[in-house]
């Protein structure tokens, strides 16, 4: 993975930059010690490591604005970082860059039940929002698996999902307002406590922009009232096809479950060995279907889903009879990554999305690839929305095996695109999938995305090296070849 060549002129001004930054933020909030910087050398994608030139931990919006402006004026790149749980290397530092760590922005500023929203700083963890409002019966809906650690600022940057987004949406559907600082220090407020932007939807654009457009300093999230009940069904099937068929039939019956997860045989067995949730060991595929709402609704839907599963040839069906049992059903799924990780020194988690009915085809092709590369693969699948997480098992100590795992992963993602899906459903492009963007987008598509980047950060100082395989200068992207008079008239019907 090629990152932008470190700029020697920038490295040479490191000392004076540290001094200048210490005039902007408290001196001990500027980290320049090499040992201390090692703590920031990677995020959740640990295969790539690079300590930053300097790390800065601002505490106020003014400080963020001043740090960014200072870096822009001096031609220094900036990488924003929350808790560093990115699985795509979105917060991978640069050797000649300042790492802007937002963890001191950790306060919940306001909970407004009247307007069903909360105003929080970006360093607040996803789960902390729910914890702050659950006594009143509310919660924040998107629940990525890393919710105990990941921050809401990072969730905005990555447009994080979770197991409940089929019914309740992604981050982008649950954000009302943002405060954002641009690279030149401009502080903007987008949205607020009301619905929908007027003018261009810059909140929607910022969400999922992977820290390339601006630094989020405040987030207004929508709160939902927690459902009265939730129950889960654990359904074993003799084949992936039967499991997939059941998912399609549930949705065709007009049911949108709160959660709809699928695991393959390898993942089922690993999870069972890891935490004994009581998964059916005779199943080739396992569905967890969660239904929530008032008792009357949940009971009604449970019986409908049970009927559909029977008709699809289910080997076993269990319905949770208590909250403990429901959580136990989920325990295996939520621990699938560590469970599979235990079976191998290293694993590599992929994140493609496919049209759901392509699942049997994709799993068959993946099994062929697994034989070709000689690496095992386990699958967990957000079956409701087609988001697939194949986990490739490898051992980095075996020479060449990391590269083989990466090639295997690339082949899987290209397959996802080939069947009508996308490279990443919720983990982001980051550095990891940057060089695959051409499999999904044309040069014109990518150039237009980069022109949007130019509208926010014309010098490209904010998080360069992520998302885009080729970096163009904004002046070059803005150029237009107009042949005046060469095209006298379009060949179209006129009226």
């Amino acid at each position: 993975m090629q990152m932008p060549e470190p700029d020697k002129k920038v490295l040479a001004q490191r000392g004076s930059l540290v001094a200048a930054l210490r005039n902007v933020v408290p001196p001990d909030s500027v980290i320049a010690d090499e040992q201390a910087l090692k703590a920031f050398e990677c995020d959740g994608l640990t295969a790539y490591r690079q300590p930053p030139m300097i790390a800065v931990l601002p505490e106020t919006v003014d400080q963020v604005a001043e740090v960014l402006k200072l870096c822009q004026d001096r031609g220094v790149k900036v990488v924003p970082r929350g808790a560093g749980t990115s699985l795509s290397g979105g917060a991978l530092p640069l050797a000649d860059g300042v790492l802007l760590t937002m963890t001191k922005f950790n306060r919940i500023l306001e909970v407004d039940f009247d307007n069903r929203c909360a105003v929080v700083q970006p360093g607040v963890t996803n789960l902390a929002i729910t914890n702050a409002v659950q006594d009143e019966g509310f919660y924040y809906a998107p629940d990525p698996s890393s919710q105990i650690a990941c921050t809401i600022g990072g969730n905005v940057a990555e447009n994080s999902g979770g197991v409940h987004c089929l019914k309740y949406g992604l981050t982008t559907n649950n954000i009302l307002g943002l405060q954002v600082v641009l690279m030149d220090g401009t502080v903007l407020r987008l949205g607020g406590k009301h619905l929908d932007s007027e003018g261009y939807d810059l909140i929607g654009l910022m969400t999922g922009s992977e820290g390339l457009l601006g630094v989020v300093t405040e987030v207004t999230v929508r709160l939902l009232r927690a459902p009265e009940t939730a129950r889960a069904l654990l359904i074993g099937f003799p084949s992936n096809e039967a499991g997939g068929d059941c998912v399609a039939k549930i949705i065709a019956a007009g049911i949108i479950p709160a959660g709809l997860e699928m695991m393959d045989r390898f993942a089922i067995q690993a999870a069972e060995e890891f935490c004994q949730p009581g998964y059916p060991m005779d199943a080739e595929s396992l569905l967890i279907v969660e239904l929530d709402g008032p008792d009357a609704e949940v009971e009604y839907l449970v019986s409908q889903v049970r009927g559909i599963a029977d008709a699809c040839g289910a080997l076993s069906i269990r319905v949770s009879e208590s909250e403990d049992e429901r959580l136990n059903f989920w325990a295996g799924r939520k621990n699938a990554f560590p469970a599979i990780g235990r079976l191998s020194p290293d694993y590599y988690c992929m994140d493609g999305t496919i049209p759901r009915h392509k699942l049997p085809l994709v799993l068959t092709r993946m099994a062929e690839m697994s034989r070709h590369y000689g690496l095992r693969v386990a699958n967990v699948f957000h079956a409701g929305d087609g988001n697939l997480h194949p986990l490739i098992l490898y051992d980095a100590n075996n020479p060449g095996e990391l590269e083989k795992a990466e090639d295997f992963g690339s082949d899987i993602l290209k397959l996802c695109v080939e069947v009508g899906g996308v490279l990443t459903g919720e983990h982001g492009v980051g550095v990891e999938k940057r060089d695959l963007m051409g499999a999904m987008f044309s040069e014109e598509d990518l150039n237009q995305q980069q022109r949007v980047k130019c509208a926010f950060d014309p010098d490209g100082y904010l998080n360069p090296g992520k998302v885009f395989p080729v970096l163009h200068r904004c002046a070059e992207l803005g150029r237009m070849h107009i042949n005046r008079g060469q095209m006298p008239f379009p060949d179209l019907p006129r009226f």
Partner: protein
Amino acid sequence: MTEGFQAETPEQVAEAVRWAVSSDTPLALRGNGSKSALGRATDAHTVLDLSRLAGISLYEPEELVMTAGVGTRLADIEAALKENNQQLAFEPPFWTSLLGANEEPTIGGVMACNLAGPRRYKAGAARDHLLGVQGVTGRGDAIKTGGRVVKNVTGYDLCKLAAGSYGTLLAMTEVTFKVLPAAEKARTFLLMGLSPADAVKALGDAARSPHEVSGLAYLPDRAAARSAVEYVSATGQSVTAVRVEGPGPSVEYRCGALRDMFADIQVEELHSRNTRTLWREIGEVAPLMDAPVIWRLSVPPAEGAAVAAALSAQGAEALLFDWAGGLIWLGMASLAADQAAAVRADVDRVGGHATLIRADEALRAVVPVFHPQPAALAALSRRVKDSFDPHHILNRGRMVPETG
């Protein structure tokens, strides 16, 4: 507008835009024209007609996804969905009477204007359902963004920019969007005779309840009197309406729970047909139909009544709340420039925006149709526009007047 082109393929759209760039001829993008009176009148006088880019090219009910040409009639899309008991969950309004239009709305117009009806409060707006877009930038480049799957974070989400950009960034040619099951059953719970302040409080209580309500509106007595639903019009009082949708047993249960919540207020219940009629009236702003000037205000829901009270001092004659008080429809007999500024000042006090939806063209030329933005935000929006359309070929002046 008398001259223009009719594109039959996306390639022809690109060809027309490239010609327009080369001859510096701004283009007015148009589907069937039902939203021509929405937004500022564009400075472009050459029409690029996209209505022939019509037809549903993909509909997979089990995958909850549909792809259609931008010129596809909204009515055709709803009919196709209905065959499979599905719907556009954001309940897009037609707004034909509201805008004095006779044309059939298209899906392209719905997306370009980011329209959504009463269910928006629960289910999101058009922008929340738009998954993928094919279109032509003002540079004449054919591009795509997004895809056909719900979970997708590959690259910037330019769908969000396309939605609500009124054709100023892209000439969209094809859109892919999420579709959802229609509810098995719907009922509306009516609370009679509340003041605006009490109504907003009641709507807030319903919104904060676990009963997953999908409509939260308030019709003052004069608005209620105009309803075609007799239970609503015959009361002679204001009507606060709460809609519950879902599987049969669930709707029964939740209506019972709401009845308990509002035990001390006089209530009525509407069944399916009357529920459909009432919420269509609300989405189409039917109770305000005689007002020559109509505003649409988005504010924090709990502030709805206070904003409305302030607005009555600005000459507000007719009112309607949707979205639990977060959406205020405001009818006025006339509008002077200083009144418009006062309406916006009332909104700015609580945060939100006010859009002038119905007004004649002369008025829309002098009063900003869209809520004016702070300078730094306006400058950024302009840079975003320039990144797609550096020569302002597409719908020039439709959202903000050209400067410099």
